[in-house]
């Protein structure tokens, strides 16, 4: 007996008292290896790119966790590893109480229905030769056994959900604006009614007036469908207004993690403060929310062969001599729920 469609739209309310997080990772790592030969030696040197280095994350149902960082921080890789687009190198992952670390085959396929990803750059994630309705219907074709008519109905539902008209169904991506394309991407991600949606810079490629609409749409969808978001971005202004918890990454490591209010009220890690300082603000009022003027010198180091000591040492403006010698500090809890990877911030 085929279930009716309305059930796809009922929010995933967790039973009262469920204390287990929806997503939990422990020391999750993703390394990329390549070999380089440097003559005259014939033995290749192994180059390790530590894109994600021992990340432990906990995400509760209904939360929005923002992962913030610049290029090379590993935030996109983290998102892709959690979404199992790429497989982790090390560490463990639990989803909805079950361990999913090594899952393969049909279990992996089942997992894909629960965790979906919305990509950056709306233009590139839609195949320019596919029609909009085919694009949105793809996950349905792969995972669900619906007739063509039923699929069509579901696509219409999804388009309605993201506030797009059904007339767009036979069109091709090039006929759509950036905002519309991003909505299509969101519709596709929601097709299988996932529990966790990973948003990779969902608004970076869009105009300002469209960004706000997409963010509002995402918020509304979260409320309506009971979704949990992992938001990957570099924009702290968005994060302040959108997320419950923030994780700041630098060179593959988490350097600070705290509930949103706390992080902005009291940024502890020097990198977080530099990031805040670099956020372009529009009004004087906003300016007051930024700590002292900090401009970082130097370039963002490449994640190839990350040093043994604190990753931020090369650009830190508050570094002490001991930072260069000591090993990479551990995450310490400065106050309840506020973790930071800097010994001097913990005092």
């Amino acid at each position, binding site marked *: 007996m085929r279930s009716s469609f309305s059930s796809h739209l009922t929010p995933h309310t967790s039973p009262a008292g469920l204390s287990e997080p929806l997503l939990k990772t422990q020391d999750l790592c993703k390394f990329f290896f390549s070999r380089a030969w440097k003559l005259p030696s014939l033995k290749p040197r192994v180059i390790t790119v530590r894109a994600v280095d021992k990340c432990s994350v906990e995400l509760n149902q209904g939360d929005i966790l923002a992962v913030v960082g610049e290029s090379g921080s590993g935030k996109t890789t983290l998102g892709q590893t959690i*979404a*199992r*687009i790429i497989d982790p190198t090390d560490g463990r992952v639990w989803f909805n109480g079950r361990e999913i670390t090594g899952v393969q085959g049909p279990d992996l*396929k089942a997992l*894909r229905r629960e965790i979906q*990803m919305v*990509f*950056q*750059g709306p233009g*590139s*994630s*839609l*195949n*320019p*030769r*596919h029609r909009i309705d085919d694009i949105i219907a*793809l*996950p349905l074709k*792969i*995972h669900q056994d619906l007739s063509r008519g039923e699929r069509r109905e579901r696509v219409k539902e999804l388009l309605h959900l993201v*506030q*797009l*008209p059904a*007339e*767009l169904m036979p*069109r091709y991506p090039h*006929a*759509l604006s950036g*905002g*519309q394309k991003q*909505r299509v991407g969101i519709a*596709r991600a929601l097709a299988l009614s996932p529990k966790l949606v990973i948003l990779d810079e969902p608004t970076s490629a869009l105009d300002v007036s469209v960004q706000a609409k997409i963010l509002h749409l995402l918020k509304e969808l979260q409320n309506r469908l009971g979704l949990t978001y992992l938001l990957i971005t570099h924009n702290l202004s968005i994060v302040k207004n959108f997320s419950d918890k923030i994780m700041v990454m630098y060179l593959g490591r988490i350097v600070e993690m705290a509930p949103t209010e706390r992080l902005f009220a009291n940024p502890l890690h020097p990198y977080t403060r530099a990031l805040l300082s670099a956020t372009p603000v529009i009004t004087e009022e906003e300016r007051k929310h930024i700590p002292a003027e900090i401009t970082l010198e130097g370039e963002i180091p490449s994640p190839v062969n990350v040093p043994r000591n604190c990753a931020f040492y090369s650009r830190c403006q508050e570094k002490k001599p001991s930072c260069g010698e000591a090993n990479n500090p551990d995450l310490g809890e400065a106050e309840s729920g506020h973790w930071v990877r800097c010994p001097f911030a913990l005092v």
Partner: protein
Amino acid sequence: MNEAALPKRKEGLARSWVRFRKNPLSMAGLVFLALITLAALLAPWIAPYPQDASLGVHFDKALSPPSREHLFGTDEAGRDIFSRLLFGARLSLMLAVIVLGISFSIGVPLGIIAGYYGGAVDEIIMRVTDVFSSIPALVMAMAVCVLLRPSLENSMIAIALVWWRSFCRLAYGETLSLKQEDFVTVSRALGSSSPYIMFREILPNMTSSLLVKLTLDAGYAILVGTSISYLGAGASPPTPEWGIMVAEGRHSLPGSWWASLFPGLAIFLTVLSFNLIGDGLRDFFDVKVE
């Protein structure tokens, strides 16, 4: 719903046609090709002397110059050259279609598979292609023809065997770059099977380069085909193939110039029109003016 408005523009095919039309040389090529195709299709009905295309011989009228009865004159067996040309058009176009069809069907899938999977599969397929690429097309085709019995059909097979390598290369290169695209990652993340990704996601995005290649290659394939027949390894008399017509007319040069000239001209103009269309298509796909 304020997201509804889409700009009014001519879509798809209509738009492409208007842009293509702007290039006079390509249009000339297209027109000529259309004429040749029509001629080929309607040959049995419009040829003034259809029997001359096969067995008709009239030695009394051998090598008569172009006149009102014989538009392009007659050859050494007295056959009307114009009629023979019309039938020859059929053969040449058929050769192009069959050769390209076979080499496309072999080369493109192999190229996509090699590009997509990489690793050992890639190595094997591409090295085989390399081997085939080391031998000049004409020489190889001739060798194959001579090994098998020389005939038009065999020459087509021979050319196809040699031609698939460039399609393979092209598809391989396109696949390598296309597989990095986000929409492929998305598809894989959703759980699409590899064949689906290869042939429903990647392949449709290379149609423009494949189309350009097909058009340009059609001309070149005809050239190779007629050359093989000219050299005696392909079609044999009395087939009204353009290549052997040139070869047969060679003996009567320069006195009875029409016997070689008109078939030669036919080859030249046909190949030229394919080239013009192909160039036009390439410019047309290249310019991303929107």
